[in-house]
């Protein structure tokens, strides 16, 4: 018994000795900042805003950009192109044999919402940061602008989507029960954000040169004009577009060829653009498109080749200035690149032997190594010509044909094309639409435009695609294009499977339907 007592005494002593161990047990995580400590100064707040911008084009080629490119392939402007590697998740969408589970839909959806949450966190935290009020106002305006941009990009691809409007919503368990908001509600949300952003954001001219690329009042107004246009709020669209045109902040780039030239990211015409630079210290600060879009004969991947149908559209207008700055053709010199006299478009590996000139980097501007994510240039989301054509289209539908013609003329004058000032009615409408196609060709607007533009209530896309669509008929019956009619690895009847009852929207990613336990419903037909 004595021994047991002794034993217990020693145990007690051991426990006593082992007691004060706070140093041993306090081992905080090292090397990571936490959210609660992060918003402690102005610089961090600004860095966090920068993080929202990062999601506009995604970190790399696949999160967001490639879906935009696939969208172009699903129109009459682009083939899937790369016949060397016919991937069903790309070809399938381009040909309207749509695989809802495509990685690209999924990452596009996911990446946009990550961006929205970044904006929501900024809107939640930045009001509490000690910075001068003007800056704070600007940061909040930037967050609102980009959030609106994300929702607009979602609604025009998928239709009504769930709206998460604040960071606190995510912290509440009910976040799991969200359903899709209506298209109208999403647009209303976008409009509200943009109106607030317009009130908060500085003008382009008010920014320091080192801040160029941040959202501006003009960018918010331009986007709002486009949002109105998509909703056919013609009156508001016309007014808002006019506000931008009259702001004195922007002018058309005198030489069309300079729009996509290196160094013109924030040129006079640029309203909102993502800029790319070469800096090998940091991965993915440069562009992706010159590689993903580039010819396989020119160190590219060969995705998204311009169609002869698009080329014909330029030719029918005698529009050589924009044609040569939009399409490069196999065997021909590259406009603006004196070092290439005979372009290698590899028609054996490419449907049309054509490449997008807007995302082509002339040899002299190419960094070495010429690597994806390191190529200087820009991706222009909004530019003045777009806004002017929004104005023209809205004015036409507002029965203000004079303004419509005048605006269209502004755009055509720049590229030396005459404008028939007597055009009227549907002829004027068609001319404006065609002008939009030519001016903004391969800038990834086409799919949204032909989905929303209607003739007698029928969306134009249904007239262009589908078994009897004009584009399908042209390719299967009329085309004599030497490249497209020879390389049949990509089927000539691309677009024939288009069904207007299904394909006016893309499918909701099936993963999201499963993750939401069925609360998020699929679009009809998928």
């Amino acid at each position, binding site marked *: 018994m004595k021994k*047991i007592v002794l034993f217990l005494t020693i145990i007690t002593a051991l*426990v006593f000795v082992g007691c004060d161990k706070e140093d*041993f*047990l306090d081992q905080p995580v090292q090397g990571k900042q936490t*959210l609660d400590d*992060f918003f402690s100064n102005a610089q961090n707040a600004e860095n966090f805003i920068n993080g929202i*911008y990062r999601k506009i084009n995604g970190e790399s080629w696949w999160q967001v950009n490639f879906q935009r490119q696939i969208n172009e392939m699903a129109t009459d402007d682009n083939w899937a192109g790369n016949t060397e590697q016919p991937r069903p998740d790309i070809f399938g969408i381009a040909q309207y044999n749509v695989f809802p589970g495509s990685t690209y839909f999924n990452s596009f959806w996911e990446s946009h919402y990550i961006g929205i949450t970044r904006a929501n966190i900024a809107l939640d935290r930045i009001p509490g940061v000690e910075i001068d009020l003007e800056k704070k106002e600007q940061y909040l305006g930037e967050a609102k602008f980009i959030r609106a941009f994300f929702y607009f990009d979602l609604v025009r691809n998928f239709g009504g989507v769930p709206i998460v409007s604040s960071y606190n919503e995510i912290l509440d368990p009910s976040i799991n029960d969200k359903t899709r908001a209506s298209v109208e509600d999403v647009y209303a949300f976008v409009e509200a954000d943009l109106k607030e952003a317009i009130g908060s954001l500085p003008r382009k001219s008010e920014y320091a040169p*080192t801040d160029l690329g941040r959202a501006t009042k003009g960018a918010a107004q331009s986007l709002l004009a486009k949002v109105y246009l998509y909703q056919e709020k013609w009156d508001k669209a016309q007014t808002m577009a006019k506000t931008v045109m009259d702001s004195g902040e922007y002018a058309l780039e005198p030489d069309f060829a300079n729009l996509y030239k290196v160094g013109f990211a924030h040129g006079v015409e640029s309203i909102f653009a993502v800029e790319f630079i070469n800096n*090998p210290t940091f991965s993915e600060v440069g562009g992706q498109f010159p590689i993903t879009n580039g010819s396989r004969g020119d160190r590219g991947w060969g995705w998204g080749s311009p169609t002869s149908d698009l080329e014909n559209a330029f030719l029918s207008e005698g529009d050589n200035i924009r044609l040569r700055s939009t399409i490069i053709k196999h065997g021909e010199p590259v406009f603006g690149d004196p070092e290439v006299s005979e372009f290698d478009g590899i028609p054996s590996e490419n449907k049309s032997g054509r490449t997008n000139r807007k995302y082509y980097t002339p040899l002299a501007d190419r960094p070495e190594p010429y690597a994806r994510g390191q190529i200087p240039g820009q991706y222009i989301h909004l530019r003045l010509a777009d806004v002017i054509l929004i104005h023209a289209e809205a004015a036409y539908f507002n029965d203000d044909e004079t303004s419509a013609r005048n605006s269209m003329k502004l755009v055509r004058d720049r590229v030396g094309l005459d404008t028939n000032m007597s055009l009227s009615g549907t002829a004027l409408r068609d001319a404006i639409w065609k002008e939009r196609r030519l001016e903004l060709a391969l800038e990834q607007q086409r799919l949204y435009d032909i989905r929303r533009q209607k003739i007698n209530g029928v969306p134009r896309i249904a007239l262009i695609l589908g078994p009897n669509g004009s584009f399908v008929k042209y390719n299967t019956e009329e085309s004599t294009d030497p490249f497209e009619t020879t390389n049949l690895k990509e089927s000539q009847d691309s677009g024939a499977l288009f069904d207007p009852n299904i394909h006016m929207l893309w499918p909701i990613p099936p993963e999201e339907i499963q*993750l939401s336990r069925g609360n998020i419903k699929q679009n009809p037909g998928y």
Partner: protein
Amino acid sequence: MKQIILIILGVLSFSFTAEAQNIIEGTITDSQGQPIPGVNVIEKNTVNGVASDFDGNYTISTRNNAILVFSYIGYKTQEISVNSRSKIPVIMVTDNAKLDEVVVIGYGSVEKDKIATSIASIDGEEISKQVASNAAEALQGKAAGVQVLSSGGSPGASPRILVRGVTTILGNSSPLIVVDGVLQPSGTSLNAVNPQDISSMDILKDAAASAIYGSRASNGVILITTKRGKSGKPVVNFDFNYGVQGWDRIAVADAQEYISVINTRRINDGTAPLYNPEDYGAGTDWWNEVVEDFAPVVNANLRASGGSEKIKYGASVSFFDQQSNYNKGYYQRVTGRFNIDFELSDRVTLKQDISPRFESYENTPNLLFNTLRIDPLTPVYVSQSERVGRNEYSIFGLSENLVPNPVAQLARQFTENKFFGLFSNTQLNFKITPDITFTSQLGLNVTSLTWEVFNPEYFIGPNRQNEINNYTKNVTQNFDYVVNNTIAFDKTINKKHYLNLLGGILFDSENTNYLRGYADGLPSNTDQNLWQLDAAEGETIRASGNQGTQNILSGVFRTIYSYDRKYTINASVRVDQSSRFPKENRIGIFSSASFAWDVDSEDFFKSETVNNLRLKIGIGEVGNQNINRDGADFTIGSDDYVLGGQRVVSNFLGQFGNPNLKWETVKDKNFGFDLGVFNNELTLSAEYYIKTSEDLLNQVELPNYTGVPGTVAQNVGSVESKGIDIALGYNKKWNDFTLGLNLTVSSNESKAVELAPGNELILGQRRPTLGNRFVKITELGEVVGLFQGYKTDGIFQNQTELNSHTSENGKVVQPNAQVGDLRFVDQNGDGQLNDEDLVTLGNPFPDFFGGLNLNMQYKKIDLSMQWYGTFGNDVYNGNLEYIRAGTQNLNVLAGTTDVVWTPTNTDAKFPRLTELDRNGNYKNPSDLFIEDGSYLRLRNIQLGYNFDVKGFQKCRFYVSGQNLITITDYSGFDPEVQSGGIIDGLGVDFGRNPVSKTYLLGLNLTL
């Protein structure tokens, strides 16, 4: 420092004087007259004691009327009164009354009949005989309830060990490894210990046994005891074996069959054929180009042991080398172990073990996948004329189907790993009184791993290129230590009451530290001497590094009480404080209790045949603190953006945290019996357990619209696992013939018994190929991780069948289907297929699994066999996503044209070939991919011959084969599929490197 204070404290607490009055000597022998060294001789009720020397002699001074206690493991303890004698010879009698194994139980060891928990013990002989490179392989099928799953046939791959199934969702389900009392850092594999050094392995299966290890024990605990020296003349043992390993060839389509499949896919869709078969011959045989038929494996081991009365040593050094079945990839290991025992005084012993380990390895690429998928039309190399101006990494053919050329992958893979580890274990035992022992132990683990990767500059095609070569070097250093201070009381009172008490304070610290450098533009693509950061000339230089510490401070208490060898009670408590958790929920308390009743010791139980019958019951609780270290934190990530022509910093929320994270706990109940009949020739033990894992941690993917990046750590609910372990043994010796037969059978199934709000549905195994849909689902009340998808109902044979597959109101369910496509069942009859039509398709849990071990010896010849199998489990055969479909123009298995539907092959299993696949035959999860994964495999067979050579105690030559026979209906490459977490990965097959067949020759010499 504290240990020293404690020792002094202990010393001061007791004053003792040895009254030397009489000197007694004698020799201790066994019943055959052989001297036994190391027998403990103690004057009863004192601390006075000695041990016999290696000639069995002892000398002790005692009082005249003293009683001497002679004890030695495996022999009956004797008490002899001195009665003024000066010479007392002693014959020790083997203790046959019980299976007198001593079992290691954590911070101590006791005889087997003193424990009431579930512990499986495996003798070192069994392990070293296995010629395995990894002790885990030797465990397979030996202990009921312990599952050893191969990690595939790559050199150095350490098998996964699952003790009674998986109790955790997240990745690490490997049991805690404890070597000679020292807890190894989390994630330690059994590669860390040379199998030839193992004296015994004890696996703590139930929580009643493992609760003493508290928060690190939720996956079970494996206690390893290494071999130590014995006094006596040196014994030298040398073991060497050499073998070759290879895979069974998997036959894929040649160029002609491939073209036929690809063209048929297009013709069936109405598009033009892609290839003209006349332009191609048989094409490239990728298997021949990539896979080496035989890869050598060498294992050599040298051991010496011996010692004097006061100092004993056991030392070994081993070498292991295994090459892969590709021309890249190997694993080499050199280990040493030096175990020394010092008897500093009658009361104090010191053990010092040192075990260094060097490993050198090159990662084995998992190229099987690409070798099978790449088309046979692509040449290995481009033509001579095209090679002009290309470097040696750029001369390879580019496949049109996006599969990287596997020969090119091999050519440009340069990885090098160097590992050094030093394990030191110091243990001081101080016998304060004959019954009370204080033990202080310091275990150190210092490891350093350096890996280097070089990526050469190459150009094979537009998206198969690396514009500039680059090099990465990563150095990870770990420093881990364990300090155990325990005090134990062990005494038998009045012959009937056995009491063993243990208390202790334990420190456990893991410290990790890494530094990584990356640079590009190395001056040479080929000169390996220039592949160092110092040589880099490129513009990109990146560095990263971090460190982390995780500590656990614990107190343990255990009591073992046994009455008259009839009733045994064990109880333990462990209190853990872990630095992984915030202060508020840092403490975990883990307790256990168990009870055993030896029915055969009862007076009323008299049986000639039954010599052992024991019933036991135990309950206990353990925890899992091994979770994502910063899972509670909302952390900030950083990235880049460009403004005004300059790179700017961009920050964002990198991880969404969960401040309410709790420990996972596992509670279990264990019921069992042990039965021995015919003098223990036949033994049977069976156990039934119910194990509940509570507050299971999972990395939950929230709906994407939340914008939460990645996954969030959450406690998602509770899973209840029920299982049975049965072990049946028959061991008998006739004159020249010995037979040992051991059969283990286990079953285990886990159900979700509680799911936390927001996690009512746990989805797992997202398949990008199937539209990022999840093929595994867990719902309340159901078995966890079931396969789900569409049920198929055969193949549409004609237009009538297509037209009649409608909803009640006539809506065609599969408008895009054609004859030859799969018919999916529209479960709710609404005329369309969507998520509401997904159903459960299979269960990855086997009905039972088990092993059969057979050992036979006839005169000088011995034969052993190990069979292992699982029965009644379903497998998701991911390979079927392409190998019968040509999806994305990937290659197919040979004979595919014969097994796909055509108008003339209408009872085919697989649907028609189609490129567009508008019906989604291969784009939807369905039972097409689910197969019965039952198999029976001859893991090991070994035939040995013992021969006599003068001067050697023992010489044995053996031949051995591993995985020679596999019986299965499974159509994948290897039914032994890797199981990831219980919910996500179990039963999912992705065509990793299959298990190799091995043929070995070996020699074992003892000097």
